[in-house]
């Protein structure tokens, strides 16, 4: 079910009405059945896949709890991980893997051909697989206890606000909230509705309007484009994907608030980051925290932090930029890239971030980038350009298309030519400007209005009226969220 649909609103009203009036047991069954209905409205047949994943992880974790034998525990862990990742690999990466193997066979002159199948990617598989895997590893490592109540564990995996595109939750943060009857708090209700409305505004008014402009930009033959054009299109896509995905997170967090549940934040003004390291503490925080805890830190021989906050902004590399640490960084980011999609262009995106971070580490070691305001400003400015340019492979048709587009940046015969319509540049500038000043305006406004509560409330309602009206005017059901494809 799409959040930006009427069906969902009807569903939500019925669900919330039931949620607050039922006792614990029935409430848990309501969450379970509603989450299945939520997913089933897209494809009923893929429900069996989620339930299979739930069963594997539920029984594996119970086994870890009961068995002390290290070897048996390891075998079950291996089985559980292979099952989870195997399902993900089959549904998401089968075509990519077979295509590449066939390519290699072709090069070496072999006539073996792995057949291609048109496999439908089940929505949210990357998200619920990661969530299940983290639970199983945490129970195996005895970081958390296995949940014995099947319905409660199932709800952790299939809880509808986060089922399709996150945030990626950790068991220790969420299971107790699902289990305890949360106390009804009117502030949370109010805050939740505001988050949902704001999320819808970002999606239907901003991201959906940027989408066709970005599409037109990426359709232009790269030979016509100047460096200015490349920056413009990468900024536009950078904002499209940010508003689209953060909109989904706002709505998911708002929905959880309506149920009295706290979700971790997934975004925190990422384009205000003063370094690539900081960017990954502000962008898709729950994914980067997951990668930190289950990929990066284990490879670096550090202890899992076991929480979904903080992202991947650790300073453990200080004084130890070794070949080994660079390779681990590269592997981590390649995995991060391939998680987003079965395509080399996503690997290119991941590698570009690995390179950016490596260079940052080198520079940060040489000069303290936050030493003074001027250096901090320069550091923010260059980080923003690099992060935006790194979006190119994410949106390009292929990795070769991405390299062609990047290549235009160093084409010194056409740095300033304009290949798009005037409005494209205007919109890119306008949206960047509004986004960059927004947090400062909000902080200043809050400070200014501290004592004028009445005026603050009146203006808040005028803004909400404007936002709701815009949502009503531009509400379009057909548009999916970008992160559904991951």
């Amino acid at each position, binding site marked *: *079910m*799409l959040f930006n*649909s*009427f*069906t969902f609103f*009807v569903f939500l009203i019925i669900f919330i009405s039931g949620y607050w009036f039922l006792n614990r047991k029935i409430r848990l069954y309501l969450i379970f059945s509603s989450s299945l209905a939520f997913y*089933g*409205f*897209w*494809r*009923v047949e893929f429900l069996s896949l989620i339930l299979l994943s739930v069963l594997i992880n539920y029984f594996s974790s119970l086994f870890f709890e009961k068995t002390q034998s290290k070897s048996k525990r390891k075998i079950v862990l291996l089985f559980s991980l292979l099952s989870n990742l195997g399902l993900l690999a089959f549904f998401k990466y089968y075509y990519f893997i077979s295509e590449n193997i066939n390519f290699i066979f072709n090069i070496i002159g072999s006539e073996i051909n792995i057949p291609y199948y048109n496999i439908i990617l089940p929505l949210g598989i990357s998200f619920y697989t990661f969530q299940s895997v983290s639970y199983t590893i945490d129970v195996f490592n005895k970081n958390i206890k296995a949940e014995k109540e099947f319905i409660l564990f199932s709800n952790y995996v299939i809880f509808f606000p986060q089922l399709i595109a996150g945030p990626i939750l950790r068991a220790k943060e969420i299971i107790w909230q699902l289990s305890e009857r949360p106390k009804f708090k*009117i*502030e949370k*209700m*109010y805050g939740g*509705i*505001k988050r949902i409305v704001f999320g819808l505004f970002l999606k239907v008014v901003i991201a959906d309007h940027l989408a066709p402009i970005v599409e*037109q930009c990426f*359709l*232009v*033959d790269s030979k*016509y*484009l100047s460096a200015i054009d490349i920056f413009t299109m990468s900024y536009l896509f950078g904002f499209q994907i940010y508003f689209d995905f953060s909109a989904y997170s706002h709505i998911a967090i708002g929905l959880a608030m309506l149920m009295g549940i706290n979700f971790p934040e997934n975004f925190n003004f990422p384009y205000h980051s003063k370094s690539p390291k900081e960017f990954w503490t502000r962008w898709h925080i729950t994914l980067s925290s997951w990668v930190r805890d289950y990929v990066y830190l284990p490879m670096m021989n550090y202890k899992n932090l076991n929480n979904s906050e903080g992202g991947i902004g650790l300073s453990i590399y200080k004084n130890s930029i070794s070949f080994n640490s660079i390779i681990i960084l590269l592997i981590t980011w390649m995995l991060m890239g391939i998680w987003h999609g079965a395509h080399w262009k996503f690997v290119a995106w991941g590698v570009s971030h690995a390179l950016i971070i490596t260079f940052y580490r080198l520079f940060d070691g040489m000069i303290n980038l936050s030493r003074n305001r001027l250096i901090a400003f320069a550091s923010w400015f260059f980080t923003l350009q690099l992060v935006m340019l790194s979006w190119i492979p994410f949106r390009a048709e292929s990795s070769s298309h991405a390299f062609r587009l990047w290549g235009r940046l160093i084409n010194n015969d056409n740095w300033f*030519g*304009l*290949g*798009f*319509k*005037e*409005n494209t540049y*205007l919109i890119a500038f306008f949206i960047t400007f509004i986004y960059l000043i927004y947090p400062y305006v909000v902080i200043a406004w809050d400070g200014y209005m501290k004592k004028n*509560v009445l005026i603050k*409330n009146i203006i808040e*309602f005028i803004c*909400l*009226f404007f936002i*709701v*009206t815009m949502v*009503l*005017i*531009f*509400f379009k*059901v057909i548009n999916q969220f970008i992160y559904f494809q991951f």
Partner: protein
Amino acid sequence: MSLKKEIKFKLPVLLLIPFFSWFFLHIFFVGDNQKFDQLALGEEVVKVTNYINNKPILCGSFAQLDKCLRYLKEKNFNKKILWIGNSQLNSVNQGNLDTTKTASHRASEYFYDKNIGLITFAAPNISFQEYSVIIDYLKKKIDFDIIILSLVFDDTREDGVRKSFLIKKEKNKNIQKTLQEISESKIILYLDKHIKWNDIRSAAQGKIYTFLYQSRNFVFNINPTSTRKFIKPIFDKNILSLEKILKKLKKENIKTILYVAPLRNDIKIPYSEIEYSYFKRHTKNLSTKYSSYFYNLENIVPGFLWGEKAGTKIGVDTEVDFMHFKEQGHAILGKNIITILNKLL
């Protein structure tokens, strides 16, 4: 007031906001059927749909196009002609909706008596890429003898094909709709029936886009005489489409007439002279290459026959119009096209 008390008051207000919003939209936009294109031109420019024997001969959408085709199909015309262009062909400055005759209407009437059918497709800011889509669609339905294409420099800045021009593919019955799609279409149908959901929203969208367009022009002081930028990639894409059309029509022995559309010439034109000359030269060369007929009609409508349109920036009521002219201008264009066609028939 404590935060809890404050929220107790604010929550019901927040829940009522969508209803207030819809009430507001309903009051302002119910029954407002003006589309964005028409809003931009204002009341000064009349958009005409011409008829012969109660059948439309001038249309601007695929839905209308099928009705126009009926005009050609129901009478056994000796020859069939298609004329395609932008809003210049269906819009008249300071015209009268009931009595105004456009150039294409005059040509259709003239040739009707000679048992030759002529229909026109006109849409605002139509690109050559869209010409290609329309021609492909129409050729499957009717065998045309002559196709007339209007060439406007402005339109080479338009990229892509608008959604309404994309021909709906026949629905594949094997593809099952999801539960979401089924429920969603039922809810929207219900809302459309009871609260005019889509009508009110599209009217509001039109007003917002117009406001943004006017604000941009106000802030950057853009007016009709401001020079339009030549956009090389879009220009090349359009020229490529035009070339494909000419190549295909030549292969199928369909005569093609290209004409440079009339342009207001009593004030500075809104293009760079060099770029505009390049456009004319380039299209003429293409015409020669594919043996089509090329005419430059840019100066046939004198300055005094051009009128005004609604202002395109905040605070300006009317301004000069470079694209559309008065009815007498249509008479001149119609006469020229009739003369050109007579030579070919």
